[in-house]
């Protein structure tokens, strides 16, 4: 009987051990489960962020592609195209749609995948489980040849200039104050960061109807094309260009096959005689351009122009100090760095720099140091398909459609 009781007490103790042990184990499992859920939540957060980064990478890749010179070949109006890329951790797929209604607009849908063994979606091509994000955006593509002046930095518009037939962009735009006539005249002017106040400035005549009756703030900073070392644009000009003999341009110059001249170093323009352009073509250089004389067209009256020159310099464009006191440049310029008149003293009354064309520069446009009595800029250009200039891309909206 005593033995039986003793076994009963031991049995109770064992039972108590088991119950308490189970309770502790349950608690630990509960805690472990919550910790696991927290980890899962953290992993989901990180991986969905990474998927969004892949989608953004797709948007950026598409935008870079659209700034390249052959937009018409890559994405003709009214067509769609795709861009895709993948690495060990994820991938992106971008569909591009260029409307007929407004050929400057391109709609992008970018899908980013970040590979995750237990991800909730499958990569569209390789079927790998992933976290996914979908982004929709619209871009406005503007050919660099369409600008009168464009600069992704600060620009001051001198008082009294007439820029009414072209459009102008600068990150920060300032209109110099003045009171004498004629007043400053501008067409469409755009900025992203700041504009001199008041806007519209009362001493400036805005020639275009609303909303262009003042400087217009853009939603996002336009992305300027990269024409420098390693850029796709440079490769394009290398692939399709004809070598420029002696890296000089003088006298009557006809368009080469492919409408592109490719120089190997600094280019001298009109260093022996004024350049007369026949046909439509581009001169690309990985170095600087030095302008010594006039650039004119063989048939200047033709509209649209049948003769037009565009100069693309990876570095600077310099108007040399020895250039004539009345200098006319009928050309479009896309400059990787600055467009400058080399510094010299006053050229005297009646001296004038006339640029009929456009300048898109990455760092600076400054002809105030060239000693010119007057500087006159007027837009001219061509949208001929043979003129393969790069583009500027501006993002109009950005929507996250899905992000898991």
């Amino acid at each position, binding site marked *: 009987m005593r033995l039986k009781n003793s076994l009963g007490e031991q049995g109770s103790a064992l039972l108590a051990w088991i119950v*308490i042990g189970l309770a502790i184990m349950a608690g630990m499992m509960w805690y472990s489960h919550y910790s696991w859920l*927290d980890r899962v939540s953290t992993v989901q957060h990180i991986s969905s962020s990474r998927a969004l980064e892949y989608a953004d990478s797709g948007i950026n890749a598409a935008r870079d592609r659209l700034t390249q010179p052959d937009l018409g070949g890559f994405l003709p109006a009214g067509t769609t195209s795709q861009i895709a890329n993948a690495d060990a951790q994820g991938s992106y797929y971008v569909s591009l749609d260029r409307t007929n209604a407004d050929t400057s607009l391109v709609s992008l849908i970018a899908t980013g995948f970040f590979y995750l063994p237990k991800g909730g979606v499958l990569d569209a091509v390789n079927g790998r489980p992933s976290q996914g994000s979908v982004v929709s955006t*619209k871009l406005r593509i503007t050919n660099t040849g369409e600008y009168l002046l464009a600069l992704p930095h600060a620009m001051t518009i001198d008082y009294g200039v007439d820029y009414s037939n072209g459009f102008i962009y600068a990150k920060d735009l300032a209109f110099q104050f003045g009171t004498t006539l004629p007043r400053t005249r501008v067409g469409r002017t755009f900025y992203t960061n700041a504009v001199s106040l008041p806007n519209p400035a009362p001493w400036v005549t805005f020639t275009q109807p609303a909303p262009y009756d003042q400087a217009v703030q853009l*939603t996002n900073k336009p992305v300027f094309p990269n024409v420098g070392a390693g850029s796709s644009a440079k490769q394009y000009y290398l692939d399709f260009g004809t070598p420029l003999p002696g890296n000089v341009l003088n006298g009557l110059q006809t368009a080469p096959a492919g409408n592109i001249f490719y120089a190997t170093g600094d280019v001298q323009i009109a260093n022996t005689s004024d350049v007369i352009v026949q046909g439509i073509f581009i001169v690309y250089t990985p170095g600087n351009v030095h302008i010594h004389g006039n650039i004119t067209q063989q048939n200047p009256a033709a509209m649209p122009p049948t003769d037009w020159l565009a100069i693309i310099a990876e570095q600077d464009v310099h108007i040399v100090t020895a250039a004539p006191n009345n200098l006319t440049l009928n050309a479009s310029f896309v400059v990787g760095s600055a467009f400058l008149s080399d510094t010299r003293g006053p050229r005297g009354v009646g001296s004038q720099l006339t640029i009929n064309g456009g300048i898109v520069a990455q760092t600076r446009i400054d002809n105030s140091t060239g000693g010119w009595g007057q500087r006159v800029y007027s837009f001219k250009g061509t949208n001929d398909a043979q003129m393969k200039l790069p583009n500027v891309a501006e993002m109009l909206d950005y929507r*996250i459609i899905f992000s898991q």
Partner: protein
Amino acid sequence: MAIAASMMGLLALVILRFVPSTHLMQKTLTGTESFTQIDKAADQFARDIKQADPVTVDLATQPLASPTVNNFAFQQLIVDVNNPSTPIRIPIRYWTQTDSFTNTVALYRNVNNASTTTLVTANLLAPTAIAPLVQRDVEAVILTLLPATPNQAPVVRRVTIYH
């Protein structure tokens, strides 16, 4: 008998040690859930700002760097390719509201001036001068949510507003 009593005593000690730990565990779990909620709220806030028209994310006119201001508004754009000159503008507004009973702060969100608003997350501390709800970097916005649960780190997001 003596062995059983000793074991029971030992067990009691073990259980007594777990009583406060269980309480601590519960607090930890609550904190974890709260943190996840705040984390998700910060994600939503960040995504809203990422989709905003950068021009409208103007802290010069909405100085939330000051903790006394608890209202942050901006607009998102949707461009129709058939009518690009008049994009649809969707106003988004975030604001904080203090619960005087718990002395914590809740974050609310309103989209397109709708009559209903969403409670994004609660159980926050009021923004401070050192950690304002929103502050502006050169081209980015930094969001800071301060969990009211003790010993929890602030939830911070940095969102580039120019694409």
